[in-house]
């Protein structure tokens, strides 16, 4: 078994107006940063995964997302998998 960290970001689906992101964008513009647009606010979930390989670790993280961490009616998610170097954490 190897040890991985799954990094999961969850954001509102593109079709849904992200009012929090919009509000932050307006605040950034009032701070004289008009070059910043399409601000989106999401969640970040980090999990340590024990798995024989990176693909299995990703599959486990994906199952966690589809069952609990994200709601497909309102959210999209993205997973990145990082292998721990050396001994298990």
């Amino acid at each position, binding site marked *: 078994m190897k040890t991985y960290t799954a990094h999961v970001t969850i954001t*509102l689906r593109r*079709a*849904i*107006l992200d*009012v*929090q992101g919009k*509000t932050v964008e307006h605040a950034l513009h009032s701070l004289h940063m008009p070059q910043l647009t399409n601000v989106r606010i999401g969640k970040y979930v980090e999990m340590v995964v024990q798995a024989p390989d990176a693909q299995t670790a990703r599959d486990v993280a994906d199952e966690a997302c589809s069952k*609990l*961490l994200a*709601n497909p*009616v*309102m959210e999209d998610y993205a997973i990145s998998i990082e292998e721990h170097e050396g001994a298990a954490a």
Partner: protein
Amino acid sequence: MKIGVVTFPGSNCEADAVRAGNVLGHDVVRLWHKDTSLPSGLDVIILPGGFSYGDYLRTGAIARFSPVMAEVTRFAANGGYVMGICNGFQILTEAGLLPGALIRNANLSFVCKDVWLRVEQRTPFTSAYTNGQVLRIPVAHGEGRFIAPAEVLERIEGEGQVVFRYVDPAGSMTDAANPNGSVNNIAGIVNAAGNVMGMMPHPERYVEDTLGGADGCGVFRSLSAALETLVA
């Protein structure tokens, strides 16, 4: 009629629901989130308002996996009446017992005030009202903006599953009357079978004039009438 009211960790409107049932002369039993069976003879289950599991992750996302929810799902599948109020509505959408989802209010603020609702459909939850009747009922939520994918929205509108809409006191659907930015001013919906209903406003808080209003009584009267019809 016999009503079961579920308490989840973080529920805070279960006592209101119990009292409303009692005031209106019904038997009320309390159910616990860890229950793995339901008392016999139950007619209605209420999932009350509150902040189950601290609203962690998403509202209702963790409560939906409580042991009692397996029983609630089975009860609903057998035709039992289930009503989710506020957080209860959020739990029902997370559990897939109702379509759509509830997200942060469009103005990002918690709203706590009376709103006006227009009764849109004759259902087991609304038959004591007349269609088009305007009710004054309180809301208290931060995440009550109802959304649904376009095809789902088209289906629930087309099938008459929208039960309540936010309106002004005259009964007109306006943006100003919409407290949370819900699509089509939707405040409450039923499932396709018509036995599971969710709504963000709190009818259980308005069953006595001395406590501010009694427009919520009709939901309980409707259920009572629906059950009598079944028996008869």
